[in-house]
């Protein structure tokens, strides 16, 4: 269901891209894929999966947005597999078998990529722990000097800038 070709131009400023494209000039065929889905649910899954699969040849595009011939093929394959009744995991496994983990924009949470999924959680736990330490410290600190410090600050900023200059700090 993707009007691939002209709808999918993204900035390709990378010189490498130019070289790659030169390698793979395809004849300009009319690109419209009026896939007829047997159910709206399949159409929804088609849209979702085509946005989660990366075009192996392009710079950084999913197969839904890319006009590369390989993306057309992958969309066709995706459509066929969906209509055959394959579930999402099977389809993704198919794609990974052909193009490697690279094609998945949502890496499977296994092996090294498990870390990718754990990272936010680990960071959040570390952050929360840090927060607790700081809160305890804040509660235990004796209230001190604060009003004075603010008064000194105002004096520094308003009245006596010229005095503050040299006294801000003497040379180390």
């Amino acid at each position: 269901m993707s009007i691939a070709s002209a709808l999918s131009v993204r900035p390709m400023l990378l010189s490498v891209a130019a070289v790659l494209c030169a390698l793979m000039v395809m004849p300009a065929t009319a690109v419209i894929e009026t896939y007829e889905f047997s159910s709206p649910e399949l159409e929804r899954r088609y849209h979702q999966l085509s946005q989660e699969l990366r075009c192996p040849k392009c710079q950084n595009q999913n197969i839904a947005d890319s006009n590369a011939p390989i993306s057309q093929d992958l969309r066709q394959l995706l459509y066929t597999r969906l209509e055959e009744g394959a579930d999402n995991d099977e389809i993704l496994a198919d794609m990974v078998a052909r193009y490697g983990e690279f094609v998945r924009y949502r890496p499977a949470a296994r092996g090294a990529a498990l870390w990718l999924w754990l990272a936010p959680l680990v960071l959040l736990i570390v952050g929360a722990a840090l927060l607790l330490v700081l809160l305890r410290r804040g509660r235990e600190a004796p209230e001190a000097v604060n009003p004075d410090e603010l008064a000194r600050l105002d004096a520094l900023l308003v009245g006596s800038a010229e005095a503050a200059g040299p006294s801000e700090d003497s040379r180390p």
Partner: protein
Amino acid sequence: MIPELGHFALIIALGMSLLLAVVPLWGSWAGNFAAMRTAPSLAIGVCVFCGISFACLATSFLQDDFSVRVVASNSNSLLPPVYKFSAVWGNHEGSLLLWVLILSFWLAAVATFSRGLPTVMLARVLAVMGAIAVGFLSFSLFTSNPFARLLPGVPSDGNDLNPLLQDPGLIIHPPLLYMGYVGFSVAFAFAVAALLGGRLDAAWARWSRPWTNVAWAFLSLGIMLGSWWAYYELGWGGWWFWDPVENASFMPWLAGTALVHSLAVTEKRGLFKSWTVLLAIFAFSLSLLGTFLVRSGVLTSVHAFAADPARGLFILVFLAIVVGGSLTLYALRAPAVRSRIAFSVLSRETLLLVNNVVFLVATLTVLFGTLFPLLMDALGQGKYSVGPPYFNAVFVPLMALLVPFMGIGPISRWRDDSHHRWLSRLAIPGFIVGVLAIALPFTAAQGFNVWVALAVLLAGWIVAGLAADFRERWARSASFPRALARQTPSYWGMVLAHTGFAAVIVGTVATSQYSVERDLRMEPGDSETLAGYSFHFDETLRVRGPNYLADAARFSVSRDQQEVATLVAEKRRYLATGSVMTEAAIDGGLFRDLYVAMGEPVGDDGAWAIRLHYKPMVRWMWLGALMMGCGGLLTIFDRRYRRQRVAQESVTTHGAPA
């Protein structure tokens, strides 16, 4: 002649920034005030010469001087003049010159508006920024000279600017973005100067706060424009792709958001000083990292400039010096003593800490996700891709986690607050928001949606907190107008920015959940109904632009027999390069956008592949971001920052310090 002049001006700018990096710093170390006082003049000098250099490059573009390499590769005689001008930064070399120019603007601005600062402090701040200028000017001159000539063999015409960049949005997007990126160098310079002086106090926070707010505001606006541009120009209605280059601009924004809030605590309460300094270093480091990612080619991106490992190495070395140096300084000089200022668990300090934790976790998550493919490749684990499904899955919950605290923020008190107080202020507004969150989604054409309900709940909660806070302020004033008039610009800035954030939440979720998109084969005379709007394909037209030819499709859109809009989508073929571009036609509105884009012709009977979109509330996102940016800018009009100017006047009347 003009390019040589520009080149020469750039060399002079480098010389002056070298002096700026060395002389005032030596002065501050030796106690030599004459040396320190050279800083503002040198800073303005750097700005003048960068300006001359930039003007020379722009002149070369406007005069079609194709003997200059970047002009020949990025411009064309047919290009409209305004795009010839914006073509200056539509390439690596020119955009780097823009980076340098904007850095010099910030230098001149600090030199001009911070005369009230103690001389030593100002000298150090400007010297640190001067050192950054040295790095970028050398980068420009030694690896990416924009004035390099193509001699002999001057082409008769240029290659043209990438048609995607021939757009009004792209004229102002990079300058705004760079204003933000580079603006964090000011906060960074203040932090490093404070570390050099060995004194991190609330004064330092108050000085650097307005600068940080402005930089953050520009970055917000820059990111917003980029996203908007992607939406209307790239032709498939997307607005954020989590591409490495987009993340490169988003990470400093996230860290900057944390910094803006932590500076508030440091200024008002003198707390978390060393943390705030670290954040200031972190935010600018992420700006530099972004530059590295965009220009080195270590990650695959759709937006990257020409990849060149030599340039990458240069930036990496510079990054190592700047970030490594400042972090070393931090390790040596940051106060290791524990803060002795008390605050209770229920206090504004705690809420702002939560903000910092969440934004920092978000920043590091985006950083880790962006670099993950590189990490795996470096460790020999194979090739991975990390894209929108991952980032959305981890980022959205993080932001949702933030909002409950964000609602309480405005009504909370420093130091010690009570949950009774929070409950009494927020219970009723909270209840109303809860009801609205369930009721409002039912009014949408597509019916109730749980995610939209949740978004309304979160956004409403933010607004409820702001409203409860204002009610309290109102109660303290004689009348409503008095209450409005009495509030400070910082307060209104905060209100605007937080409301903007709420709008972004609603816009993002509503448009992701309720959008309808259809790809069709249509010929003139056909009609299609989408979310209650009837799109009628009237006719195809031939259009001739200044440097392109186009096929156009005219649609009239109606709803309930009422004419709503006429949309003309184009498919352009640019004459210079032959590249084909889709120009989507959009009828924008506060509550919905209608979007038509043209694909390929289908068959011989005049039919076209047409994409139709119905996007509800998509503008709330950019409107929200605009509000956030304006909020940030508003804060600098606060009286307490103007006091610096009072101080400045006293300096001029009493003569310079020392």
